[in-house]
């Protein structure tokens, strides 16, 4: 019955109570939303590359290797020689190997030389394959496949010619060899979206008339002559490797790291991603902090509402006292009301969150390549909700204790 009375009392003050509940609901939705985005971002980040057991490159740092080979950030300091690449490819543990050759760009996007195996082997978001939205993978030397962002930003369609520039942000363009877009990939939310992919041989073809990073003056080899040439690369930037059995990963990693002929580095993508996330992850702490403050603000708002309602409710408390309620019943009633408000707010916040997610999920995915999963609340989220309710009960103790004192002084007679 006390519960019903508390509920009735809340209903009687529907407007202010509703506003308070709304504030709590919004803050809870924000907090959980930030949590979702955070875990979604973390998962998306970890999902940037999957299915690959090792990333191999010239010896540097694991994060650096990950950054340039997967995220196309920064540059390799040195390359992986073709001989070493062949050596690794020939090892018995290796199931598949995909070379990556970087260093050229098209407008603001990086050009990556690889083999068509890349499209089968590169997986993201726990094993999802890259899919072609339009066209086909490279079949000709001068074919390119572009990522979704490249197509969207530059307005390209299958069949459009494009020119690849040597080096990054370079003004000297490889005008001699116009490439043609053969395929456009679907959005993946990974750096692949922002990459122009060509064959490994095409990378060599671009550089036929170049030496030491500069164009040989007056030399221009026609495209059909280039087609006849032996376009064996001297080196690649990195390689993605898949092993036959999970247990062989560490053996192969050690073998590559101890490779005598050339200083090489093999990293486990998952481990390197973790290392990188530890650097990026500072922002997430800040986000949680800010949204936590919003929840606290909402709770303080609730405390203020309860405080301001105390005076007009002294008569109500006097009735309770006259009927034999102890002052601590009054205290309990106010704490119960606050907990009820917080509980309704928490549930409403959860509703807001899921409605918001349902609306935002496709938008966020297409705009940022961030996949926000709509799952049942996790144990952690349920804990957050319970913590909000508990915190509101604690916060409400402040006005409740005042009510306790007032009801002790007033007894059953209120003179207002």
């Amino acid at each position: 019955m006390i519960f019903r009375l508390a509920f009735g009392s809340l209903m009687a003050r529907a407007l202010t109570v509703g506003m308070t509940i709304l504030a709590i609901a919004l803050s809870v939705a924000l907090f959980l939303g930030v949590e979702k985005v955070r875990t979604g971002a973390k998962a998306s980040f970890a999902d940037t590359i999957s299915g690959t057991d090792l990333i191999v490159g010239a010896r540097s740092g694991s994060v650096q290797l990950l950054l340039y080979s997967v995220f196309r950030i920064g540059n390799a300091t040195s390359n992986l020689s073709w001989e070493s690449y062949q050596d690794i490819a020939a090892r018995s543990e290796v199931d598949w190997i995909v070379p990556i050759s970087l260093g050229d760009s098209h407008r603001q996007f990086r050009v990556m030389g690889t083999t068509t195996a890349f499209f089968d082997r590169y997986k993201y978001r726990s094993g999802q394959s890259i899919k072609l939205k339009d066209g086909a993978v490279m079949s000709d030397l001068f074919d390119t496949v572009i990522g979704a962002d490249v197509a969207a930003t530059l307005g390209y369609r299958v069949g459009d010619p494009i020119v690849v520039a040597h080096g990054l942000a370079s003004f000297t363009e490889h005008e001699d060899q116009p490439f043609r877009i053969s395929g456009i990939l679907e959005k993946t939310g990974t750096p692949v979206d922002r990459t122009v992919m060509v064959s490994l041989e095409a990378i060599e073809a671009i550089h036929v008339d170049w030496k030491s990073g500069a164009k040989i003056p007056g030399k221009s080899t026609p495209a059909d002559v280039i087609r006849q040439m032996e376009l064996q690369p001297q080196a690649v930037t990195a390689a993605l490797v898949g092993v036959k059995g999970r247990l062989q990963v560490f053996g192969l990693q050690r073998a590559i790291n101890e490779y005598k002929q050339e200083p090489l580095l093999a990293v486990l993508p998952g481990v390197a991603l973790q290392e990188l996330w530890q650097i990026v992850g500072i922002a997430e702490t800040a986000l949680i902090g800010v949204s936590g403050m919003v929840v606290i603000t909402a709770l303080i708002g609730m405390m203020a509402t309860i405080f301001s309602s105390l005076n007009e409710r002294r008569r109500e408390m006097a009735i309770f006292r006259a009927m034999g309620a102890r002052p601590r019943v009054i205290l309990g009633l106010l704490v119960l009301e606050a907990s009820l408000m917080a509980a309704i707010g928490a549930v409403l916040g959860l509703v807001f969150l899921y409605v918001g997610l349902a609306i935002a999920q496709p938008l966020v995915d297409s705009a940022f390549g961030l996949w926000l999963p709509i799952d049942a609340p996790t144990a952690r989220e349920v804990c957050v909700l319970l913590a909000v309710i508990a915190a509101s009960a604690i916060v409400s103790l402040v006005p409740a204790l005042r009510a306790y004192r007032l009801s002790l002084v007033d007894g059953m007679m209120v003179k207002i």
Partner: protein
Amino acid sequence: MFEEASILKLKDVRYSWPGRFSFGLTVPEFDLTSGETVLLLGESGSGKSTLLSLICGTVSAQFGMVSVSGTDIASLSAGERDRFRAEQIGLIFQQFNLLPYASVLDNILLPLDFAPERRSRVNTPKEEAKQLCQDLGLPRDVIDARAGTLSVGQQQRVATARALIGQPPLIIADEPTSALDAATQTTFLKLLFAQSKAHSTTLLMVSHDARLADQFDRVVQMSDISQVERQSA
């Protein structure tokens, strides 16, 4: 030392309010016999409210004895006094008696929540509340209405039903009619008397209105039983 029939007994009670203005009330002797109806007359400021608070145990006398149904309430802890009040006394106030947001039924049953013994005397709470409403001239279905939607006269009857439920031995009514118009007053008092007779409860009514006197077994002037000391600090 108590007579069997004594429901309320005050002896040598002295009480002064804490605070800047010292206000003291002394009641050398005041008794109520079980089953009688007593009108306590006093002007405002005569210490009526303080006397009621003393009887109900929301304040405790510094000296003397207040006993209700043979129990010296000074011997009880504050929490026990609250429960004792719920068990022994049905209260009706001048107005604003009810929780406006709660249903009439919840209002009537409210004291039972704090008085287990009184509750145990009520077998079918909803039925008994309905019966009381009917006896007090309220429609039976008023029970589901929100108390705040009732007229003042109806609210006072609901408050009376609440005071009567579970048959507490003592009913204290503090100016219950002063918010009512003359016609409603008369009806209300008739019903109140009839019901307190029917439930054989003692009725102590506090008022400043001497015109009501002839309807009571006994009339007591506040000034005859108590002295008020007042000093400005």
